[in-house]
Structure formats: C-alpha cells, structure tokens
C-alpha cells in the first residue's frame, strides 16, 4: 500500500508516545549534559497526557497530531510546548483534510511543521537544535518523491536522515536555548531536542510503516 487511512493513525501516535516514554530517562541524561536535565520529563509529561486522555477515544492521525500539539502548547509550556506544539499543529493543519495519507502528503505535512518551527525560532541547520534532525528528514522525504521510491522506503530514508541529523549535532556548538550559554563547552554531546525529534520521527515512521504493510 502506498497510503494509510488518516482515521487509522492513532496507532502511529501511540508509537510516538511509547518512543518518548521509553526514552524519558535517556533524554534527561542528554539534556543534563549541557542543559538542565528536564527534557525527558517535559516531553514524557505531555505525551503521557495525550495517551491518557485519548486512551478510550477514537482519533485519527492529523487530529491526534493536533491534539498532542495543543497539549504540549497549552499544558506543558517550557520550550517544548511552543516548539513541538507548533511542529505538530502545523503538520496537522497541512493534512487535516486528508482521508488517505501518502508520501507526498506526509512530506508536505512535515515540511509545514518545519516551516512553522522556523517561524518561531531563529535556529537553522548547524545551530545544534532539533532543526538539525527535522530539516534533513524533510529533505529525505522530498528526495524520495523525486526519485520515485515507495512511501515505506522514503520513510526508511527519513529515519536514516533523522539519525544522521541527530548525530550531526554532536560536533556542533549550541547557538540557541539553554546550552548556547556554554559556547565551546557545548561541543561533544548530542542536542536533547535533536535527540527527541529523532525518536519522534523514527516512531512515527515505524508506526506508518506498520499501517502500510
């Protein structure tokens, strides 16, 4: 199959939730190295609220992204509220009318998320933030469209791009957020947001791949 039903997408969201929950402690450690150590906690809180609130409810993919985004924005706050809130809500908006989600749709959604993010933060690729994960992931999807590969293969490429993007932050110096205060001392470790973004994109891709097969 080359598309999945938007209404079937709750499983994708739950995969994302699980991805964050499983990595709560790890994200805390990563953030602790050059940030304040709360990234896992913040993310876990928001994603778990979503899980609990929609445990017994039907909810589609784009609707779920919107709800999750709103929970982060309106109930979590911090940096992650506006950042992931914007990404997820803008993704949802770009896909809200879809019955079926294909590669081009999904690419457009993720690109909208990236654009939304860039509307509220000044960070760009190379600044050691989640932009370093998200931006190459969008590129990978677009490359996939251009080269005509399957949705699934494009998602696998996106996962690899996200991993690579996350890893690229290791050698960077943070320019934004808490760790930017560290200057050169921020080099040598992963960025927490880039790491969580990678987890989210991987889980999202895996969830979609399951629906596709």
């Amino acid at each position, binding site marked *: 199959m080359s598309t999945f039903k938007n209404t079937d997408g709750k499983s994708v969201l739950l995969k994302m939730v699980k991805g964050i929950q499983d990595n709560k402690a790890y994200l805390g450690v990563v953030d602790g190295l050059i940030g304040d*150590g*709360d990234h896992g906690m913040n993310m876990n809180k928001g994603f778990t609220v979503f899980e609990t609130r929609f445990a017994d409810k039907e909810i589609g993919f784009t609707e779920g992204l919107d709800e999750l985004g709103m929970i982060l*924005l309106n109930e979590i706050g*911090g940096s992650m*509220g*506006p950042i992931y809130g914007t990404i997820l809500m803008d993704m949802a908006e770009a896909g809200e009318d879809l019955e079926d989600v294909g590669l081009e749709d999904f690419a457009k959604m993720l690109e909208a998320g990236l654009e939304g993010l860039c509307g509220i*933060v000044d960070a760009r690729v190379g600044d050691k933030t989640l932009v370093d994960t998200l931006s190459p992931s969008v590129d990978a999807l677009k490359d996939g469209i251009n080269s005509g590969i399957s949705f699934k293969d494009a998602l696998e490429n996106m996962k690899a791009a996200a991993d690579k993007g996350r890893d690229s932050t290791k050698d960077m110096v943070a320019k934004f957020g808490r760790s930017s*205060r560290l200057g050169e001392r921020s080099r040598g470790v992963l960025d927490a947001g880039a790491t969580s973004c990678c987890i989210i994109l991987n889980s999202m891709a895996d969830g979609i791949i399951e629906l596709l097969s």
Partner: protein
Amino acid sequence: MQRILNNPDNIVDEMLQGFLKAHSDLVEGGENPRVVKVKNIPEGKVGVITGGGSGHKPAFIGYVGKNLCDAAAVGEICSSPTAVAFLDAAKEADQGKGVACLYGNYSGDNMNVKMAVKMAKKVGITVKTVVANDDVASAPKDQREKRRGVAGEVLMWKVGGAKAAQGGDLDEVIAAAQKAIDHTRSVGIGLTPCTLPAVGHPNFEIKDGTMEVGIGHHGEPGIEVVPIETADKMAKRMTDIVLPDYPFEAGDEVVVLVSGLGATPVMELYVLYNEIDKILKEKGIITYRAYVGNYFTSLEMSGATLTIMKLDDELKELIDMPAYSMGLKQE
C-alpha cells in the same frame, strides 16, 4: 533525595494549593489554575504580570502583591509557563489600560510570551513586554540581548509595579521597568548543585572545593570554575564582574540585592553583603537601599547572586514605594 514531596509530577500543583491557602488574604488562583493573582486588583491601572518556571521561590508568585505584579503565570519546575497561562495572567490583570509583562530572558519564556502577546491582541488586550537580562556572566556586553534575567527581575517588578500603582500608563510602566533592568547588573556564584524532584539526581556538578562563577538559576554553567574562596574574595570577584559592566562609579547611588540560591544559610548572605558593602564604600558608591535574603532561588542550590541597580530620582521614588507580597514586604 531528602525532600518533602508527594508525586514529584504534582509538586507544582500542590505547592500552588498550599501557597494560595497560606496567603489567601493577599492572592487567589486565576480561572486558569496556573495563574496566581492579587485579590482585588486595583481598578483602572495598568496590569503588571510576570511568569516563569517554578522552583525559584519567592519568584515568581511571591512577587504578586500590592504595588508589585498583579498576576503571574506558573510553569513546571525550571520550565516556562504555557503561552495560555501568560495569556490568562494578562486577562486577569487587564483593567482596560493594557498589561506590562515583565519576565526573564529564557528561550521558552520568550516563545510563550510572544505567542501570548499575539493571542492577547486577538482578544483586544495590549500586552507590552520587558525582558530582564541582568546576568552579566551569561553573554558578553555587546550581546546583552542574549543575557539571562536573574535576581534583577525582582527590582524590575518592584519598579514596574510601583509605576503602575502610581497611575503610569502602559508606555510609562514599560519604560520604567526597562530603565530598571537597563540600570541593573547581576552575577551568581554556585556552590552546590540542585536536583529537579522528578529527575532525582543533581543535573550538574560543582565539585567540592570549587565554585562556579556566573552560574545561572537553572545551573547553567558560568564563565569559570575556580577553587572556592573566602567571602571577601568572592565579594571582590562578584563586584569585579558587575561594577565595570554598567559601569557603576563613585558617587552613584545604588540598590544592592544579595540573594541566596536556596540552601545557603542567610547568615552567610550577610557575611557576603558585609564584604560587598566594604568594596562599594571603598569605591565611593553609595548604597541607597539593600536587600539581603532569599529573593530568587534555585531549589536547594547553594550560593548567592549579587545584583546592583543604579538609581536616578524616578527609580528612587519607585524603589521606595511600599510593597506587600509573600516575597517582598516593604513599608
């Protein structure tokens, strides 16, 4: 973790419940449970709000009170309040004269306030902002816009709140608060780290026998880790960072605020203040008023911050105005 807690995930809500009960004569919860507001905000004045992550008591809600902030948005521990909480604080504080949102320069707060300002505009509330960036150690002088806000925020609230209480219009309140922070410089020294209750272990390290100069209120690393010094040398180090940055000079009248970071005995803050005072006197800088105590903390971190504000006639008058909140009571 030797702490007084139930489920650490609920600590902010439970703290708020306790706070509102203990100070029910003075403050109440807003419609949004993450907003604390003055009971009976005086009518017809410019609203003054703030907000920030929890764990800095008395900041932020401890500065909601008479002639101070009218409302504050409350975030998780060391994490910005939501945009909606800032918006709702503005709604509670708005008397039709607009709202001054006086907060600290942290990326989460910046984003959430920015969104709240937009949302407020949509519902017809004008919110203008002042972003505190008094922490000298957090960026070079030519990048002042990148500097964090620390204990200087207390003086910004004092001044902004007083100006609004005097009947200043929104632009006047913003201008006064902006002047307050522009005239203010701070630096912190950290002696022990702090632990976010939900994390359970210190999220940074300060080795015994060393101190972190320029530490941030969330343990953001400072500019230097040096062997721990005696109080006189610490005072010298702090004033050497703070004084040249503005600069403060002989004949200047200043407010001095020495705040503990949480776990340092208040006795030691007075020892430090005593040394700072000696240095200021030597330099001919005149202390018009001093605040010494736990004014802006970081959970159970040990250490202290020094904040100095240069006064002019307007700032003097505003600093002298009585104020009454959990964190700041002044006749």
